[in-house]
């Protein structure tokens, strides 16, 4: 029982979901006031958390979730370990869904625009009005995003019976990938990728760790593939693209290709692997034409590099991932086809790529139908437009004319639960429930189902109603019978059918079992049918597409790794303040330029520039980044909101303003990488709200790496590593304390006072595998959610006062955008090291920080006077200070962190909320440790290894973190800390004896050992 579902958790979920779900389900009454429990509800014990399963509604990946509730309030979401997609992990965006649930900017009830102003209206009137207007409208559009399987079904039923048309549009949908799958293998699907099974991975710009398809699942698969395993087995990853995304930063090598030339690299590789195209079936001639030599000059990659890459690619199970959204240019479908050919010729189809068991529930309509809808709306042929689960005015380029077209419709309904740019022009607003308060379901791939169930009563501040219920009610009023009175009934009916498909005897039992486990397997398995390449039925052009505009700077607009497209999730302080994993910038937009290019243009970091294309212009500060080609300028999506709420509005710029509204010819996907851009300095400067100090380790042993070839020889090399220091000590120099102490040697002689150190007292310790860590920053948000860590606001981050307990450090070692070669970016989640010989402890004048007998360096918030001496003396700089009270309902100053009602409902009752003048830092989630210890004491049981999981470990998609008692020699953390790659940051310099061990990153290229 070291991982997976624990018995206790299992029972909790059994008890809670089965009984609780039905009771809490579909109440729409508002709770007027809180009453003490006269008759306490059976499943709620004050002080004990209740857990429910559900499915994350943040993106299409459909991660299974466990929802932690305390006293009837949702306080935390975590990955459901039994769910095949999340496998227990979650990304930052998933965690931040809590801030959408409790968002203070949610609509307080249904609204009707009268005379330009929104006025409250009752649900009855609103529904009646909608029924009348839809009835009168004739044709109407129902726009939606990714609402889940049953909701999609209901929408189709509703639209079908009332004369409407559903347009499903997801800005980040992989239309070219689906079209390429159709062209090559005759399947209009997004294939299922098995990263874990590959030994060699090539991404042609697909940001699979951030925004592409299923980041949590792929993050796990990637870490398992690329993390060094038994016997030094380590998968290799090459990134082919014009800019290093976070995914690219995790690569072992980088081919910085000419913008838009992925297809050529893929075909040239296929050429090498197929012996000049011989095994490429119908594409034989095409592949034969693209030899590495032929494409070298166009792609900017030497033939030798391509050949070498191809040869390694052909060696074992490998996998090529097609261009992602950032690379969605005019030839995107052809590029995807080229990648599919590459996978085919190296025998990956059926092993690491599966077209017969695809992923993602239902296809989005692409941009084509949206264009038609826009034309129809602006032509006045449409009587009404309904928008659900998407924010199209923001998510479509201004040049698409959606805003104007939509505004011209007579009756516009928005189901947005909080104000957004689309709701801002709607006539009627019928706020939907948040997915944590609502019923629903999702399929992450065929046959894999999960129920979305309400984990709490609807947040009482907001009079919301599930859109499914609204549609059913409106349909009834329009005289249509969709077979169910409520969406819950509708869902149950669908699930009764599923139960039949699954062969379950008892539909109710099947339903309850699905609620309990959070996942249902319904029969469909991969067909296993052999795929074969088909003759292309459309004309394919593989050469790099044309870019509009003059000059040589190509504009890359990429989905933010924090927000994706940011249409619906930007109004969340956790996401706004999460340092972008690449730039480490928070809150505002930035323009990425290569430092050499910037220098040539006379631009420095922080200079504000105007980017302009023929479609628009935006103004943002420059951040120079060596991981981008000199002829590319990059700008992230997701910022620049005008009507999305108090936390999002006015931050940064909307990158889509620079883009044309153009569908890729073959797939109908909206193109993002299509234009050149003009960059002009404004002469203004601004300080970047960045958490990054220096990007260089400055010759310090912070994140040393080891070459794969050098593994195993490490032990011998160990002696030399301490070279100068030991020499000094051996020569009669000052030898303070034993510097070779292990984390288990605790407490150190001389470091103890008080009743410490029974033999059987645990010492809690952590080990973080930097070979697995991808820098995705999920742990940062998980920690923030768990520990009531406040957000501080842009001005404070700019000053350096960010309060994250985990600082995900990012150091560049080798980043060269001028030619193909190794790339080496080091990530290090820096947390309190819980030093055995902690420098912070002796300097605190009031014992606010001290050691517990089980080796945790604790911070007693109530005792802290705020001298900040501990932070000065912490060599790791992990102590963060409450410069203001960031936890009040009102900000101390405009723009400062605060927790307005009802965001404070999210606060974890197990953790103290801190005020101005208090130091804080990682506590190893001590409340979780104590919870388990207390329960073990009450039950007379013992704590097993792996039972206590801190929030960061729980959330880590890469499984890079292990936690436990290092004195238990069999524990995972003890084993990890004795790994040959294990080291402790700065230990030999400052002799802090940390409890946190890091495992060195393993590189394929030779590295300086990191010691000096």
């Amino acid at each position, binding site marked *: 029982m070291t991982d997976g579902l624990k018995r206790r958790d299992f029972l909790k979920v059994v008890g809670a979901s089965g009984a609780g779900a039905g009771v809490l389900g579909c109440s729409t009454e508002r709770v007027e006031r809180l009453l003490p429990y006269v008759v306490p509800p059976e499943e709620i014990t004050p002080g004990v958390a209740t857990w429910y399963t559900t499915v994350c509604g943040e993106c299409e990946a459909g991660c299974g979730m466990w929802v932690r509730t305390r006293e009837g309030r949702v306080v935390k979401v975590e990955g459901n370990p039994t769910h095949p997609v999340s496998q227990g992990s979650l990304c930052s965006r998933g965690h931040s869904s809590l801030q959408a649930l409790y968002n203070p900017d949610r609509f307080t009830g249904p609204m009707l625009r009268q005379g330009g102003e929104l006025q409250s209206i009752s649900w009855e009137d609103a529904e009646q009005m909608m029924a009348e207007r839809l009835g009168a409208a004739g044709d109407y559009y129902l726009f939606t995003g990714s609402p889940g399987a049953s909701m999609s079904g209901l929408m189709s039923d509703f639209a079908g019976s009332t004369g409407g048309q559903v347009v499903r549009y997801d800005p980040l949908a992989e239309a070219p990938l689906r079209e390429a799958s159709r062209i090559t293998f005759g399947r209009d699907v997004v294939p299922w990728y098995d990263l874990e099974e590959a030994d060699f991975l090539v991404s042609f710009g697909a940001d699979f760790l951030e925004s592409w398809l299923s980041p949590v699942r792929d993050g796990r698969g990637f870490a398992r593939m690329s993390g060094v395993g038994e016997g030094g087995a380590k998968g290799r990853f090459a990134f082919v693209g014009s800019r290093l995304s976070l995914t690219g930063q995790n690569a072992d090598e980088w081919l910085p290709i000419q913008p838009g030339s992925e297809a050529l690299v893929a075909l040239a590789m296929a050429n090498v692997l197929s012996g000049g195209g011989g095994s490429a079936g119908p594409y034989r001639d095409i592949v034969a034409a693209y030899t590495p030599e032929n494409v070298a000059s166009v792609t900017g990659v030497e033939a030798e590099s391509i050949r070498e890459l191809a040869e390694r690619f052909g060696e074992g199970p490998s996998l090529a991932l097609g261009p992602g959204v950032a690379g969605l240019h005019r030839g995107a479908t052809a590029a995807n086809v080229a990648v599919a050919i590459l996978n085919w010729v190296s025998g990956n189809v059926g092993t690491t790529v599966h077209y017969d068991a695809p992923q993602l529930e239902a296809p989005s309509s692409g941009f084509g139908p949206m264009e038609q809808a826009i034309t129809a709306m602006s032509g006045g042929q449409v009587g009404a437009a309904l928008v659900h689960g998407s924010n199209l005015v923001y998510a479509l380029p201004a040049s698409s004319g959606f805003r104007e077209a939509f505004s011209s419709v007579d009756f516009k309904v928005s189901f947005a639960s909080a104000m957004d740019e689309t709701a801002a022009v709607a006539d009627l607003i019928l706020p939907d429930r948040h997915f944590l308060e609502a019923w629903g379901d999702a399929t992450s791939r065929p046959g894999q189902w999960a129920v979305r169930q309400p984990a709490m009563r609807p947040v009482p501040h907001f009079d919301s109603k599930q859109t499914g219920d609204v549609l059913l009610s409106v349909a009834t009023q329009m005289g249509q019978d969709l077979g169910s009175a409520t969406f819950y009934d509708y869902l149950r009916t669908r699930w009764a059918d599923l139960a039949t498909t699954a062969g379950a005897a008892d539909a109710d039992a099947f339903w309850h079992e699905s609620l309990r486990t959070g996942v249902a397997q319904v029969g469909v398995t991969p067909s296993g049918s052999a795929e074969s390449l088909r003759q292309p039925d459309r004309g394919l052009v593989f050469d790099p597409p044309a870019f509009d505009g003059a000059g040589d700077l190509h504009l890359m607009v990429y989905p933010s790794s924090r927000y994706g497209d940011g249409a619906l999730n930007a109004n969340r302080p956790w996401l706004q303040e999460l340092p972008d994993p690449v730039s480490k910038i928070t809150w505002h937009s930035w323009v990425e330029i290569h430092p050499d290019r910037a220098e040539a243009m006379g631009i420095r970091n922080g200079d504000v520039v105007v980017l302009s294309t023929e479609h628009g212009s935006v103004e943002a500060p420059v951040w120079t980044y060596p991981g981008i080609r000199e002829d590319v300028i990059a700008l992230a999506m997701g910022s620049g909101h005008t009507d999305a709420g108090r936390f999002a509005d006015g931050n940064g710029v909307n990158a889509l303003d620079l883009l044309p509204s153009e569908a890729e010819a073959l797939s109908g996907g909206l193109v993002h990488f299509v234009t050149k851009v003009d960059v002009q300095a404004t002469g203004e400067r601004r300080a970047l709200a960045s958490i990054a100090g220096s990007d260089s380790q400055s010759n*310090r042993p912070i994140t040393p790496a080891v070459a794969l070839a050098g593994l195993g020889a490490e032990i011998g090399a160990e002696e030399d590593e301490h070279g100068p220091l030991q020499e000094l000590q051996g020569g009669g120099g000052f030898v303070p304390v034993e510097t070779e102490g292990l984390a288990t040697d605790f407490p150190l002689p001389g470091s103890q006072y008080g009743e410490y150190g029974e033999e059987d007292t645990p010492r809690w310790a952590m080990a973080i595998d930097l070979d697995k860590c991808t820098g995705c920053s999920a742990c940062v948000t998980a920690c923030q959610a768990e520990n009531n860590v406040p957000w501080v606001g842009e001005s404070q981050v700019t*000053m*350096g006062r960010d309060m994250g307990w985990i600082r995900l450090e990012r150091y560049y070692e080798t980043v060269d955008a001028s030619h193909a070669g190794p790339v080496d970016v080091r990530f290090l989640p820096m947390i309190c090291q819980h030093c055995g010989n902690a420098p912070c402890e*002796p300097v605190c*004048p009031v014992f606010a920080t001290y050691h517990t007998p089980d080796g945790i360096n604790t911070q007693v918030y109530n005792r802290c*006077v705020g001298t900040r001496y501990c932070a*000065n003396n912490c060599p790791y*700089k992990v102590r963060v200070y409450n410069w*203001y009270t960031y936890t009040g309902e009102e900000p101390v100053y405009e723009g400062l962190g605060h927790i307005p009602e009802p965001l404070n409902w999210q606060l974890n009752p197990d953790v103290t909320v801190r005020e101005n003048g208090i130091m804080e830092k990682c506590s190893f989630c001590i409340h979780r440790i104590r919870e388990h210890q207390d329960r073990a004491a009450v039950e007379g049981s013992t704590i097993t290894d792996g039972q206590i999981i801190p929030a960061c470990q729980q959330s880590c998609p890469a499984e890079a973190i292990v936690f436990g008692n290092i004195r238990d020699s069999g524990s995972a953390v003890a084993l990890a800390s004795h790994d040959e790659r294990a080291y402790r940051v700065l230990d030999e310099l400052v002799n802090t004896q940390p409890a946190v061990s890091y495992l060195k990153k393993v590189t394929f290229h030779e590295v300086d050992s990191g010691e000096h």
Partner: protein
Amino acid sequence: MSTATEVQRGALTHPDVQSLDEVNRDVLRSLGRPGKGWWALLALALAGMGVGGYSWGIQVIKGIGVTGLTSPVGWGVYITTFVFWVGIAHSGTLISAILFLFRAPWRQSIYRAAEAMTVFAVMTAGLFPLIHVGRVWHAYWLIPYPNSRFLWPNFRSPLVWDVFAVTTYFTVSAVFFYLGTIPDLAAARDAASGFRKKLYQVISLGWRGTDREWHHFGKAYIFLAALATPLVLSVHSVVSWDFAVAIVPGWHTTIFAPYFVAGAIFSGVAMVITLTVPLRKVFGLEAYLTTKHYDAMAKLCLMTSMIVFYAYLSEFFMAWYSGEEVERAAFWARLFGQYWWATWIMLTCNGIVPVMLWFKRVRYSIPALFAISIFVNIGMWFERYVIIVTSLHHEYEPFAWGVYRPSTVEMGILLGSFAWFGFWFLLFTRLIPPIAIAELKEVLPTTNRPRAIAGAGGQGGDQ
């Protein structure tokens, strides 16, 4: 107390003092009705205190965030100013206690002002730990006091040592200062009338100048001088350990205690010069505070300047010689990094400008000395700023490096601290004879010395 040699030396130092009678008259004249200038200065001081108090008020109400402090620079102007004022305090005790024990002939005229400066500087310094902490309403937790939870302060923390050092220093220097003034307060009492007479009657503790009183006075004074002497070394050593005990590169060196003590005396003597130059001008005390005094103080400045400069150089040398990357980087950043200007101000003001003191003409030029003393005051404030801020901003973790810029609130409080100090010093000039009348008389040659004083001195000398 004084021997014949001392009297001869005293005569040489004060050639223009004609009679002992004149001493009383000249010195006590300063206690008369204050002029417009004094009131203007007092108003200025009160205004400055208002600014400081207002700034502090904002900080307490809004949060410590109104400062420019940030991670990783958790200490800034407040601790800089704290160390600055503690340092200023030191020369007073040096002059009054150590020079007393060593029988230096030039101390009599300046020690009163220096000692007052000590007390007020400690009073100013003592405010800064309170201003600095995040939750001032809990600052008393640093003091060991009986409580039901048996919670003690952490005696391993240098900040607790600071609490003891500063409170001890304040207690001893205040008592020493007050004791020394008693005979002069009695003299003032005899010369005053009205309310002031009543005040002096109370605070002079009924001093009559009997042999017995002089005897006890002499004993008490010498004991207190002996008691205060180690504090000159210990208090600033303890303050230096706030830094040296930490592992911050740039702080963690054994040189800090002597280096800080030398710096303290350096800055303190400079401050004495800064304060007494206008004092002697305004009150016409040129005959008592002569160029010989200033020459002596300038020499003290010169010597301590050399010690301090040597300490700077040895720090840079050791950083290089250690071969330690982090240490080297810290000192490189100190010289050429973000805060290079502060470091070069420090080096120029404390190491280069005082070189002029080698020249006798400079040492004997009051305006030149005044100017140099201002440089030193600025340089010594920046020395602490450099030590604190540049070390913290460039520590072990490169990714956590950051920049600190003082805010207006901090500047307001810095201004307020000078105003607060000035306020007390202004009161001092009007309430307490700024030159030790009785002691000065001891070293002046005269034929008609009152028997009482000569007797006390004679006994001391005979034993």
